[in-house]
């Protein structure tokens, strides 16, 4: 018997929703970063984990405090929803975006960084680069990269002193290992031969597996690729941005390598080191700070790759991915404006005559 008093629910279509949600996306990116973190800890010792935890904690705590102190009143949206199933979580930290920013920033730091500097970086990334603009979804720049840029400008020495793999304590005694890119840049400046410089560098395979000095997260391209493949498989990110970023970077550096192999190193070095893989899969794919349309994404990623190559080849920084992406972040509104998806049924040219007839 159909009960007469059963009150039906009326709502607008669609009546079903997809499974993906924001916190799921954020936490899966965090998950995808775990292999890289693991290799980082293996390569640089437990100090790496300490650095990561400090940055994570400072990022999450900062978001929490900013929300408590400044976000007590939010503007009313144009359409308020009624009859919601789940309540909006009161605290934005549960969505995982702050943790993700913290983790990304930490993986971009050298293991020997003083902990107070690391914590300050986390605070800057969240408070200034993200929450000051209105929180999740409103920040024009990638918070992790903005935090890193801030730290590079503020603490240039500690930020560029990279530990030798498996021997971070040595750094305390002033023994640091330059990354390949730094080494090449410095070496060329001193007028050394390229072959001479590279003789000391690890092989491609070592680089790929993870035997390279540098930031915590840059140790192994393989671990980062694993995470990247996981994100591609779960459709959190799509292929076009990593691909075109690496194409831009590899293409330009490769061109110079072919022109003059005595002055320019093999593009494989560029692709495998200096955080290029990290940038390709985790930085450039940051949804908030990348363009919306397919064409826009390609323009964005390719330009960022080319810019990275230019900075590395001709700039004074050995690594350029962070700055290249930050510069492109600033151009996203412009890219969005001029790379509209092609609308269905709005043909550029009018209907052909035979169709009209």
């Amino acid at each position: 018997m159909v009960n007469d008093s059963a009150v039906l629910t009326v709502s607008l279509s669609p009546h079903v929703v997809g499974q993906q949600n924001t916190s799921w996306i954020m936490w899966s990116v965090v998950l995808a970063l775990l292999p890289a973190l693991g290799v980082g800890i293996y390569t640089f010792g437990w100090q790496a984990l300490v650095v990561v935890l400090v940055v994570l904690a400072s990022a999450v705590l900062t978001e929490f405090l900013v929300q408590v102190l400044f976000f007590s009143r939010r503007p009313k949206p144009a359409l308020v929803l009624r009859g919601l199933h789940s309540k909006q979580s009161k605290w934005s930290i549960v969505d995982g975006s702050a943790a993700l920013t913290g983790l990304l920033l930490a993986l971009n730091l050298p293991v020997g960084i003083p902990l107070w500097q690391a914590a300050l970086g986390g605070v800057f990334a969240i408070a200034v680069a993200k929450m000051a603009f209105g929180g999740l979804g409103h920040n024009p720049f990638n918070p992790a990269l903005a935090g890193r840029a801030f730290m590079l400008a503020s603490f240039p020495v500690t930020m560029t002193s990279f530990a030798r793999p498996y021997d971070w304590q040595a750094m305390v005694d002033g023994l640091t290992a330059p990354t390949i890119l730094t080494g090449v840049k410095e070496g060329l400046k001193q007028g050394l031969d390229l072959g001479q410089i590279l003789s000391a560098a690890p092989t491609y395979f070592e680089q790929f597996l993870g035997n390279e000095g540098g930031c915590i997260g840059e140790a192994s391209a393989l671990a980062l690729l694993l995470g990247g493949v996981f994100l591609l498989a779960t459709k959190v990110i799509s292929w076009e941005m990593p691909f075109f970023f690496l194409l831009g970077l590899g293409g330009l550096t490769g061109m110079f390598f072919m022109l003059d192999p005595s002055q320019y190193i093999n593009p494989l070095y560029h692709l495998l080191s200096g955080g290029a893989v990290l940038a390709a899969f985790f930085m450039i794919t940051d949804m908030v700070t990348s363009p919306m349309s397919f064409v826009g994404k390609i323009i964005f990623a390719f330009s960022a790759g080319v810019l990275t190559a230019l900075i590395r080849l001709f700039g004074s920084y050995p690594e350029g991915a962070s700055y290249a992406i930050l510069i492109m972040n600033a151009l996203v509104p412009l890219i969005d404006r001029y790379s509209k998806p092609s609308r269905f049924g709005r043909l550029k040219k009018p209907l052909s005559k035979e169709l009209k007839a």
Partner: protein
Amino acid sequence: MKSMTFSKGGMHPHDHKLTADRPIENMILPATVWIPLIQHIGSPAQVLVKEGDLVKVGTLIAKGQGMISAPVHSSVSGTVIKVDTVLDAGGFRKPAVLIKRDGDNWEEGIVRNFDLVKSIDYSPDQITDKINDGGLVGKGGATFPTRVKYLVPPGRSVDTLLINGVECEPYLTSDHRLMLERPEEVVLGSNLLRFTLGVKLAIIGVEENKADAIKILRQTIDAMGLSPPKGFLQAHMKAKAGPSDNPSRAGYIAVIALKVKYPQGAEKQLIEAILGREVPSGKLPLDVGVIVNNVATAHSAYKIVQKHKPMVERIVTVTGDGIARPGNYKIRIGMLVREVLQELGFVPSSNTKVILGGPMMGKTLTSLDVPVTKGCSGILVLQGEQHSRQAVGACIRCASCVSVCPMGLEPYLLEKLVGLGRLEEAEKHAIRDCVECGSCSYVCPAKRGILDYIRLGKAQLMRVKRS
């Protein structure tokens, strides 16, 4: 051959086709039926019966009036109790005829056997007249009177007829079952409509998840000798648009397998998927030389023309939570949803949505006392909290909505513009092109009601235009 699909956007919602293997069954005959006089887009039909009149199944009870309208027939035999109003899905009262059933006497001349009638003994004009008299409207849900589609204005030409067997909405399986169980009638109906239009080719588009239907349709077409000669289909699809010079009115029928992607069943998307022609914004399929009909419409056209059976019943998928016997049922038009659900052992609970149509674009009912109409392809019950609206988060610019929009719009931007009241800009960004397929709201990870905003913007624009 690579399976075809439309080029912009699209996605695949969880399809829940629970009733795909349930054969079509006859629903019990209702004691009374409420037959609405508006079951189509256009002006209401003019009622011809009065209280106390005796009617049979198939008796004309209201005739179409005006250019765009369709007649209405009695779906049961019995007595007219009154001409009154009945609720529609939204709870608005619409004129309707209440008939009390008495036995099951059919109007004379209606052939109820399943013998196939292959020869077409009518002229195209006679067929359009018959289709109109049978009350045929688009059975996919839009309920546009079919005859009006076939009145091709002078100076326009049509070269292809598309038969829409896509059924991309989750849950719904009525068209699938129809193609599977009545392939001959579907093919004959398609051929009939093709003949009426005078085009050489009719293409039935079916999604790959209905491989059994594709196979059986192809076999049927082969058996009837209607399959196109080698190379004909490819040449036809490559041609941008050809003149429909076909005096003999002979032609072919082809079945094309389409990649599973929502909303492929939308008219414009289907045309683009199969023929690669984009219907310009604000124009009709006719403008690119195509006419699209649902498979169920083609089937009904066959029944109306060859069996003289007007639209008195239709196949409805009744499915969802809390239904003891989900399935595909042949239901008399005018039977109340309440009776249908009662018959199938429906257990109501709190937070129940009863939806006419599919979950992506269907309409929720405000009351169960709403009759089944010609355009009703499914009755879907969704219960529980997982189908409620979720709390809304901030837009993280993930671009999912942009990548799924089949119309190439930027839903996130439209949402923002409408929220800010910047309607003119929203209009510039083609807010009117939105087909309200719901893909953007479905994929949004922040659970934002993007389509709500777009609807608001469209309604506000309408108001501005009116005043």
